[in-house]
């Protein structure tokens, strides 16, 4: 059995596979954005709103992307650069991929980051990453229009329910994410509280002073304050 699996995992064909997968993602994003700009203009979205969106999203995605980068560096040492890049650029999330490395290794009787982890274990990891995550793609690929139908049914012409639905869904989903850190009563709790408070203050300030650009920076500012607030208390 080939023991130096990482050498193999960093060979050219894996880069090609990663690039093909990433180009599907980029292709989809570009097509969708083009359509969104075109249709958006027709139904009355202003250039200013488009610009705001681009700025807000750029600012908001930088911080979390650096967090993904930390996961990427860790994952590279386990499955090589091209596959780590592919898994975190597509479908993936750091937690799921790390879980797969452990599960794939355990199922063939070895542990990650040990000498026993060979090409055989690596191939099992590749299988479980694939089989374990196609559910997300299949459900999104096949049932997204159904979700729209379901929402229309739920709202039944009562359009005032639309914003309630999204507010409630986010509060429910992120209520769980937040409580994980609230319950642990540590620096994470400080981060949650400081960040939540900051974003409320920034949004209020934006409304008071009519400084709309503050809304674009809101989560960016809140993240930085939350992060360093946690460091101060840790």
């Amino acid at each position, binding site marked *: 059995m080939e023991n130096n699996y990482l050498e193999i995992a960093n060979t050219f064909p894996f880069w090609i596979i990663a690039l093909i997968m990433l180009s599907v993602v980029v292709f989809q994003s570009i097509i969708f954005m083009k359509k969104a700009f075109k249709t958006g203009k027709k139904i009355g979205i202003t250039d200013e709103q488009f610009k705001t969106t681009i700025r807000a999203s750029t600012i908001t995605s930088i911080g979390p992307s650096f967090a993904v980068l930390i996961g990427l560096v860790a994952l590279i040492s386990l499955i090589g650069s091209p596959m780590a890049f592919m898994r975190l650029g597509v479908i993936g999330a750091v937690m799921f991929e790390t879980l797969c490395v452990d599960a794939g290794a355990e199922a063939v009787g070895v542990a990650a980051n040990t000498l026993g982890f060979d090409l055989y274990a690596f*191939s099992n990891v590749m299988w479980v990453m694939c089989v374990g995550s196609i559910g997300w793609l299949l459900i999104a690929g096949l049932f997204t229009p159904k979700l729209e139908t379901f929402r229309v049914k739920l709202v039944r012409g009562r359009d005032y329910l639309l914003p309630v639905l999204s507010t409630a869904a986010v509060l429910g989903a992120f209520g769980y994410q937040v409580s994980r850190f609230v319950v642990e009563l540590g620096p994470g709790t400080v981060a949650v509280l400081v960040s939540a408070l900051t974003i409320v203050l920034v949004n209020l300030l934006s409304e008071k002073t009519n400084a709309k650009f503050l809304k674009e920076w809101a989560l960016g500012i809140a993240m930085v304050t939350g992060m360093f607030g946690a460091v101060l208390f840790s």
Partner: protein
Amino acid sequence: MNNDEIYEKEFLKPIIYWGSRTCLLAVLISFAPALYIYFAYGVIPKASEILQAFILVAPYAVVLQIVEPPSYFPILGVPGTYMSFLAGNISNVRVPCSAIAQNAAGVVEGSKEGSIISTIAIGISVIVNLIILGIGVFVGAQLLAAFPPVVNEALKYILPSVFGGVFGSFAMRDIKLAIISLIVCVILVATNIIPTTLIAPIGVVVTIYVGIKLTNKKMEA
């Protein structure tokens, strides 16, 4: 054509066409690394070993696969759902970007305008994310080493900061719902009586139910 028709015909229809195809194409490509190892090196695990590994990740993955799409759909919209589940990093990158952009642009989530703004926000986040990861894949380790230690320390707390920020910004719209959701989730997490993967969907269902009830009451009054 009125705006609804333009949105349906010129936007939603091609989005569903391309969205389903790109996601299904990605399913096929995701088999490539495992198959390549088999064809190039003759190495393939036993079916029982793949299954065993799958069983280990299933409690986490399968539950999320069923509950995440409907939970995030109201904010992401149709195009945003295709994009987010293809690109991954949903709760930490896609949902925050979509939500903050819709808030900044002043559109209603779930409306046509909201769906279009969400599409652009997520598209931009995909590109920013890939640029940072693309640089990171070559110089990530050096980059992280070059940061002052306090920055690396702070980056450990980015997840709670993202979640707290998104929660706070939505709590402003409906503080009652926010408190209800938080109480339900904190109790469920702290008492640990149900599997953690089920807490989020329960939170979503409870808050949506209460939210609709409260709003209907307000509208009837």
